[in-house]
């Protein structure tokens, strides 16, 4: 199914996604009502279930606040495509059930366009064009396939560390 694209630029930081004054909130729907406040106010009002965020380089840089992926998730978004992600945000996105997809050509995708994600086939499609996406690292795929880190942890009463 095709979904609407919300296009953002480079270095979208976690303060832009959810400002510091809202960090006592943990409910994703409530967080979503403040998402991108002051940066892109219409997002929290108009974003719909299944919409896709497309960013440039270094999406989600800055703080480790998991409120950022939660605020995006609370707005109904499940997939973020970007040229690159900041490290902590990338892990947080996977852990909270968002799918972060790295696409070198993300810059070519237009705001408001429709986008179709073909995760297994390794590409996304917008305005009649296909763009390849990087595969998700194997050890993180295991977490995604388990249904997120919480589900993974529940399924593994113990973990084997590298010392063993």
């Amino acid at each position, binding site marked *: 199914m095709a979904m609407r694209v919300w296009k953002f630029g480079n*270095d979208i*930081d976690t*303060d*832009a996604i959810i*400002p*510091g*004054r809202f*960090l*006592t*909130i*943990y409910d994703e729907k409530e967080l979503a009502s403040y998402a991108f*406040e*002051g*940066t892109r106010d219409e997002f929290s009002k108009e974003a719909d279930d299944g919409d896709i965020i497309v960013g440039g*380089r*270094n999406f989600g*840089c*800055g*703080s*480790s*606040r*998991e*409120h950022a*992926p939660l605020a995006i998730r609370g707005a109904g978004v499940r997939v973020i495509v970007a040229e*690159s992600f*900041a*490290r*902590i945000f990338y*892990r*947080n996105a996977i*852990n*909270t059930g968002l799918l972060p997809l790295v696409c070198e050509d993300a810059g070519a995708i237009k705001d408001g366009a429709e986008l179709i994600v073909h995760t297994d086939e390794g590409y996304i499609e917008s305005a009649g064009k296909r763009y390849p996406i990087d595969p998700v*690292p*194997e*050890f993180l795929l295991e977490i995604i396939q388990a249904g*997120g*880190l*919480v589900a993974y*942890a*529940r399924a593994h*009463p*113990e*973990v*084997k*560390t*590298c*010392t063993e």
Partner: protein
Amino acid sequence: MARGLTVAEKIFSRRCHREKKAGDVVMAPIDAAMIHDITGPLAITQFWEMGGERVFDPEKIILLFDHQIPADSIPAAKNHVMMRAFAEEQGIVNYDLREGVCHQVALEKGRVAPGDIVVGSDSHTCMYGAVGAFATGIGSTDMGFALKFGALYFRVPESIRVGAEGRFASRVGPKDLILRLTGDIGADGATYCALEFGGSAFEEMDMPGRMTCCNMAIEMGGKAGIVPPDEVTRAYLKERRSFDPVELSPDSDAVYLDQRSYDVSDLSPQVAVPHNVDNVVSVEEVAGRKVDQVFIGSCTNGRFEDMQEAAEVLGNETFSDKVRVIIIPASRDEYLKTLRAGLIERFVEAGALVEAPCCGPCMGGAFGLLAPGEVSLSTSNRNFRGRQGSTEAEVYLSSPATAAASALYGEITDPRGV
């Protein structure tokens, strides 16, 4: 082909009891885990969601409140209550709101040793690399996992070597170096990498300066910032904890993703201008810019030595009455040192608000927020749009010396001319 190891590779190899190299994915044991009042409640919730009952080791958990203290809202107060109950139930030492900013407290209480692998649910956890640990910021769900299992997945990172030689000129220091480096490497130039610092400038640098530099590794996307432990490290830790003598110097044939070298003797005071930390210029380029608020403090620059640096520039003068000056030592210990040296009295006489140890205006949550159109100069680590209040405000970042000079004149001022 055999090759030498970086500091990061040595730390992971040591903890895994076998050689680990960049690119290896390991479930590594955690030597310490830090949670605070903003990200802690969600980490605890996720720990429970994962079926957690007892944390892996209460003695390895660092727990405190620093972002919203004393509670600035009822939700913040509730978060504190929730974390107090968790600490009590789990037998974790709770520093509560008494000790100060998490990263400063973790180091000064001797909770981190050279060669440790440490996680914190705060992005500036990379500061613990100042004592030769591999320390990195993680989200709350990863923290829930770490609290339960005492282990976490890591990809052993590639390293970027940053060598610095020479002596800093008067009123130029580690903050200027790390800002310059951030400007050169860029906000994502070290993503997934460890920044490994070395050279005579780092060898001669005191522990507070090393903390300032390691603290800002994340501003380049870095996973960690590390200064190999040496005599300075050992002297700092001696009165704080016992630790294994670990040899963590990088091998001469270690392989780096990139190597950079600096001569700090010709470095000028640096300023990060709105709205990105890598937007760095020499102070002359922005001198004269009016400022409404100056903040001297944070985990980046809230230590006694930073207070001394500001006080030395202040001398017997008075801060401009056009600027609000907020000074916050980063911990109770640093506050006491500043107090006993007579500097708190000097700052208050000069017109500053001196607050109790906490994160303060750095993250724009608790107090010291900016109105639209206002300008702040801050010794903290981030100047993102909206970071300290309104998205229409501007935040500049600098050293304590530049901040103090600017507070004297109400405009960005080169401290070398004061």
